[in-house]
């Protein structure tokens, strides 16, 4: 995956994860153009489009568009599944997630994404494991202690 964007129906970016090195200006330009292209599409249209030399897979969940740009050899259908899995993770974590949750807790949305995808690829295919890892990380954060020894390495998977 080259990047993933989440944006609202008004075109406001709620999350952007870039896995390729681009300058800020370029990122902004791509974001703007791609958002416009996708927002211009009608409701029942295909989830895949060819944009520049990339394959773009997108899906709308309530008021948010989840959009991924993948490479030529990647499987579009499995990317749809990846998007769906991410939404499920968010849903489980926030409990019936809505756009506001992602706005006000954007850093948590990023943390969840980082537990699910790494370097643009899925790192864990089990929903349960991802959620457990995030839970544990949050616990650790809450403790905020300097004593790391409390968490042994083999307590987790």
């Amino acid at each position, binding site marked *: 995956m080259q990047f993933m964007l989440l944006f609202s129906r008004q075109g*406001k*970016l*709620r*999350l*952007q*994860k*870039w*896995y390729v*090195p*681009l*300058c800020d200006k370029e990122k*902004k330009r791509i974001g703007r153009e791609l958002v416009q292209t996708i927002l211009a599409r*009608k409701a*029942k*249209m*295909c*989830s*895949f*489009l*060819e944009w520049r030399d990339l394959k773009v897979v997108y899906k709308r969940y309530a008021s948010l568009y989840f959009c991924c740009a993948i490479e030529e*050899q990647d*499987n*579009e*259908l*499995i990317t*749809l*599944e*990846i998007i769906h*899995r991410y939404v499920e993770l968010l849903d489980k974590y926030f409990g019936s997630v809505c756009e506001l949750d992602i*706005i*006000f807790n*954007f*850093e948590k949305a*990023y*943390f969840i994404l*980082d537990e699910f995808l*790494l*370097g643009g*690829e899925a*790192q*864990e*295919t*089990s*929903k*349960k*494991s991802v959620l457990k*890892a995030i839970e*544990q*990380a949050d616990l*650790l*954060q809450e403790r*905020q202690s*300097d004593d*790391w*020894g409390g*968490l042994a*390495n*083999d307590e*987790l*998977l």
Partner: protein
Amino acid sequence: MSPTVRLQEMIRVIRSARTQGEERGVIQRECAAIRAQFRQADNGGRSHNLAKLLYVHMLGYPAHFGQMECVRLIASPRYNEKRVGYLGAMMLLDENQDASLLITNSIKNDLAHSSQYVQSLALCTLACMGSAEMCRDLAPEIDRLLRASSSYIKKKATLCAVHIVRKVPELGELFTPAARALLAEKNHGVLHGAIILITELCERNTQTLVQFREAVPELVHIMRGLVTSGYSPEHTVAGISDPFLQVRILRLLRILGRNNDTASDAMNDLLAQVATNTDSSKTAGSAVLYETVLTVMDIKSESGLRVLAVNILGRFLLNNDRNIRYISMTSLQKIVMTDHNAVQRHRGTIVDCLKDQDASVKRRALELSLALVSAINIRSMMKELLLFLSTCPPELKSHAASGIFNAAERYAPSQRWHIDTILHVLTTAGGDVRDETVPNLIQLITNTSQLHCYTVHKLYRALVADISQQPLVQVACWCIGEYGDSLLRGECEETEPVQVTEDDILDALETVLQSHMSSPATRGFALTATMKLSTRITENVDRIRSIVSIYGSCIDVELQQRAVEYNALFKKYDHMRAAVLEKMPVMDRSSSGQTNGESGGGGVQELEPTKPKQPEVVVAPQPASQVCDLLDLLSGPDEPSLPGTTLGPASSMTGSAGGDLLDLLGGLELTPTLPTVPAAVTVYEKSGVCLKLSCERPLDASQTITLTATNASDHDITAFTLQAAVPKNVQLQMKAPSGDALPARSSASVTQTVLLHNPNKVSLKMRVRLSYISQGSTVQDTVQIDSFPSPGL
């Protein structure tokens, strides 16, 4: 107030800003506060300040002053600060920033941290934005983690290794042994990462590829386990066991089985099993089937399996889900060349997809349909394609039009059908066709002489209906100009004839000339057509004359030039008008190259070298040279030195269109007045003195020859005389020469006309003797002319 709430409070405030300006104001204030905070010593709220900054950054505001803060936070011992610091690094730093190097050391330390979560942060950041430098530094660490750590870390380390290999391919060798060992892992996450790593390694290094081919049985075994037994609820999606892993394994198998029989054999059964057993009612199953089909088509699979794969794609085509239909067409596109017949079976469904609402699906269907056109199905396919053309989205129009032209070119069952198809395309998508369509079509029309009447009728009707489509109007004008007489005759076998008068035709052409919609080229076409009609019609020549003279003062230089030329044709050279405006002969198809693209341009270009000597008005795309034409033609008899290329005798110009024209000029239906084609042949060239000979068309047995002498040397020549001798029975009469001095460097020339009378029609030969004085010495030379540009009638 807890720091987190402050962040959310800020977000709330920003969101409640009613205008862009208000929002900017709030953000500026916040950024100032954050900056101030950054400068202070550690105050416990650093992570939240950075988080605020990251939010602001996401809205699109500059946040580079936070980069150093990220570096500092990453180095902090506290987990929450590290977490936000790394997040900031991934958002604000990338390999192009210098600050990214500063975190290399922190990452290194954190990779060896005792807490998994800290290690995980470091791995994540490295995999997301690690530069080549950082990757080289940290590769050994990653390798260590690949071998000995918990599954949690291993799975992250493998994906980190994937990133490293992508950035620095040479490091692939470092990871190969560890990758091999990882195949034995039971943990799905680790296995998934390992497969991705092996895929990357094999794609970049053929030796590694060969090495991993031995792992095919192991992969097959894993896959089989997933497909058959493997009931693992936490990995199952819609009844499919870990589709992510399955897809990845299939992709790796594809790479390993490509071009290799043994590997392909080993996976044959497995692929058949997956293809038959996978339930494709949900996306997860379809994804696996899709990957399976791609693999089957790419490796050396047996034919039964291939048929199975194509059938799966066929089933996909009928699926209600638009995504699945799109996917199947993409795959069919890849195999349409190799398994053409198999794909042909699904042609009906593909053509139906042309009518789909979705632009992506339409595009795919168009590509596939064009690839499936063959001689057998051309008529029905063309019907569908033309229907599509009239309703297709604008971005696809020109692609569709050129595709249709290609198909028509290759498989046209009859010429009339071909012309009809092209006309149809021009009326529906005229604005989107390529430039060479017009000359191509004109050439096609000229060559189907039996359909001239039919064509001109259709075009006339189309022109009267709509003059906005430029290519159509151009072709229509050209045809009306050429074949206007058939239009007036009012009879036609192939179609309902129109009852038009000369006025109607001229009205139509005038409308084109005056319309704002007509491009300059189109108006040129119309003007020329009007002019041509002056020889085809009988009553309204005055009207034509007046139209032409009006345009003599047109602002458009091109039109003005043409009008002036034509005016001159009316006034001074009326005797030549009929000859000049004669019908175009059949253009030699083969000389203009292959079917599309280059042909039109090539054909017209080949005419160019002969243009200065052609009487016909050539097609508009070469307007400038056409003007040159006429200039030369009109000033020909007066101007002694004819510029331009010298032509060999027409008979020797076999392949060229120009040559054919010259030849055919003799054979065309002649109007009473004869065309005069001075064709100059260089008969003598020595020491700068050049003698050219041109013959006028013979009339009964007489021939007029013009000899033109020029002096290209640096010295003047004086007392230049010519003497000529001809065989017995041919009478020769030399007229007085224009002069006897030839100044240097071809600044002027001498002409002498010679009349030959050849009543017995013997083969003409002539001996010419030149004598002149150059640099004080007399020079004499003789030349024998054995062949003349055009033999007697």
